[in-house]
């Protein structure tokens, strides 16, 4: 646990080194946020009375998505880990005096937290002060804000656990690009990353609610907008915790099995 914390802090400091890159990223994310919002605005302009979510909720949803992008994006490619696996340098990782699963988990989590910390505050501050239709609507009360943070954190832990499964799959396939791209594209859609789940048709929603992905994006963001009532939110967080433990246990077990079989060629 203490070693995990140390890695986390290291990653955080490393991320803070690239401030210019963070600034450029900030502008890019604001621009994309505006584009998404204007598309929704145009749809809502002549749409039906009750499409499942109000425009303010969708706008808030979109801004939060942009602000916490690095916590929610399922797939942030860490080439370092890929090279470790495909080049055989994994041998050094195995020599470390802590479990590889924990070590990598902390590393990936640290990366995400560092870049989120850099980007989310400036974006949130800017969008809070935007003029009427485009601004962020704050949550109704402190309780839903608190629930949002809890759900967001557990969601992030889930995202990291899922991406750990992807890295583990590289041990088997050795070829990281094609299959992962497929997986990433579909799971982001199922997470509500492209459009919020309530705007999807009924049959799609049924599929989405059976899978864990919507707990990473759609669920925390809709708690913030008040679209999910508090009682339901608490139940949902319970479900999140169950999924999280399943994902982590599965990942750790798979990793242990695969590492036992790993053959590192000398050289």
């Amino acid at each position, binding site marked *: 646990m203490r070693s995990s914390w140390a890695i986390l802090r290291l990653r955080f400091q490393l991320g803070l080194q690239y401030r210019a890159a963070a600034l450029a990223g900030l502008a890019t994310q604001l621009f994309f946020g505006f*584009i998404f919002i204007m598309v929704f605005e145009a749809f809502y302009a002549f749409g*039906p009375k009750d499409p499942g979510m109000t425009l303010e909720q969708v706008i808030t949803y979109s801004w939060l998505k942009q602000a916490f992008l690095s916590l929610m994006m399922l797939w942030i490619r860490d080439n370092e880990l890929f090279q470790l696996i495909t080049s055989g340098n994994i041998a050094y990782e195995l020599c470390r005096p802590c479990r590889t699963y924990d070590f990598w988990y902390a590393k990936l989590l640290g990366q995400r937290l560092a870049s989120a910390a850099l980007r989310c505050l400036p974006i949130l501050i800017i969008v809070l002060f935007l003029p009427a239709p485009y601004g962020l609507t704050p949550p109704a009360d402190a309780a839903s804000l608190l629930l949002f943070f809890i759900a967001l954190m557990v969601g992030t832990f889930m995202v990291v656990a899922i991406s750990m499964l992807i890295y583990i799959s590289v041990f088997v396939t050795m*070829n990281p690009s*094609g299959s992962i791209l497929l997986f990433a*594209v579909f799971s982001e859609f199922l997470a509500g990353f492209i*459009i919020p789940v309530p705007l999807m*048709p009924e049959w799609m929603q049924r599929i989405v609610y059976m899978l864990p992905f919507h707990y990473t994006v759609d669920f925390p963001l809709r708690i913030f907008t008040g679209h999910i009532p508090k009682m339901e939110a608490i139940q949902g967080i319970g479900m999140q915790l169950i999924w999280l433990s399943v994902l982590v246990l599965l990942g750790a077990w798979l990793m242990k099995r695969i590492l036992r079989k790993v053959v590192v060629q000398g050289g």
Partner: protein
Amino acid sequence: MSLYFRYMIILLKSQLQYRASFIMLTIGQCLTPLTSLAAMYFLFERFGQIKGWTFHEVALCFAVTHIAFSMTEIFARGFDTFPSLVRDGEFDRLLLRPRSTVLQVLGSKFEFTRLGKFAFSVGLLAWAMMQMPTPWTTIKLMTLGFMIAGGVLIYLSIFMMAATLSFWTIQGIEIVNVLTDGGREMTQYPLSIYHQRIRRFFTFVVPFACVNYLPLMVLVDHKEAQSWYALLPLVSVLLLIPSIGIWRYGVRHYRSTGS
């Protein structure tokens, strides 16, 4: 020109060496626009229309954008990855050869896996064209061709200008993504749905509108369409000329990183 094709064939052969990976990536690339399209379809199912545009009209727009963008990615990827050429000092080698730098950079990389995306968009285009109630006249088909070619030229110009910047910044800069990926994301829909200021910027500064909703209005027989809108995609050439000029200027002022 024959040199360009030579480059192309060599790079195609080298990418086909890893056949399984090539095929997987091509399929994967084909599915990335699929989810955007699915999202668009779901929104249309819920809302019916977007500022008067129907689904197949927007699908036409979406297909044209993705065809143009994937073609640019296939043929002009060299400019997209150009910062790494500068950083590694590889560009010095290109300068020594007695051929134009534009040609060599273009020939330095082809991303053939984007053929998947391209094929998907062509299929979508064909579907959207068949949904159109009015017949396809020669003029409309020509306009469609102009739109795609114009789109390629605009993306190419942006890639070139972004590459030129790296002569000075060495690093690639993320903000350029606003124009490339952002432009693609935005032009999936007719630009007329956006805020007026955005629309103006992308009409008069970066002429995306000239390959997007203005000629599209001719294609779908929009009531405000003017027949000269069909020729607007040619405006994109006006963007290519200065970007080649800037590129030349950049090459003249190039100082090797010395690595």
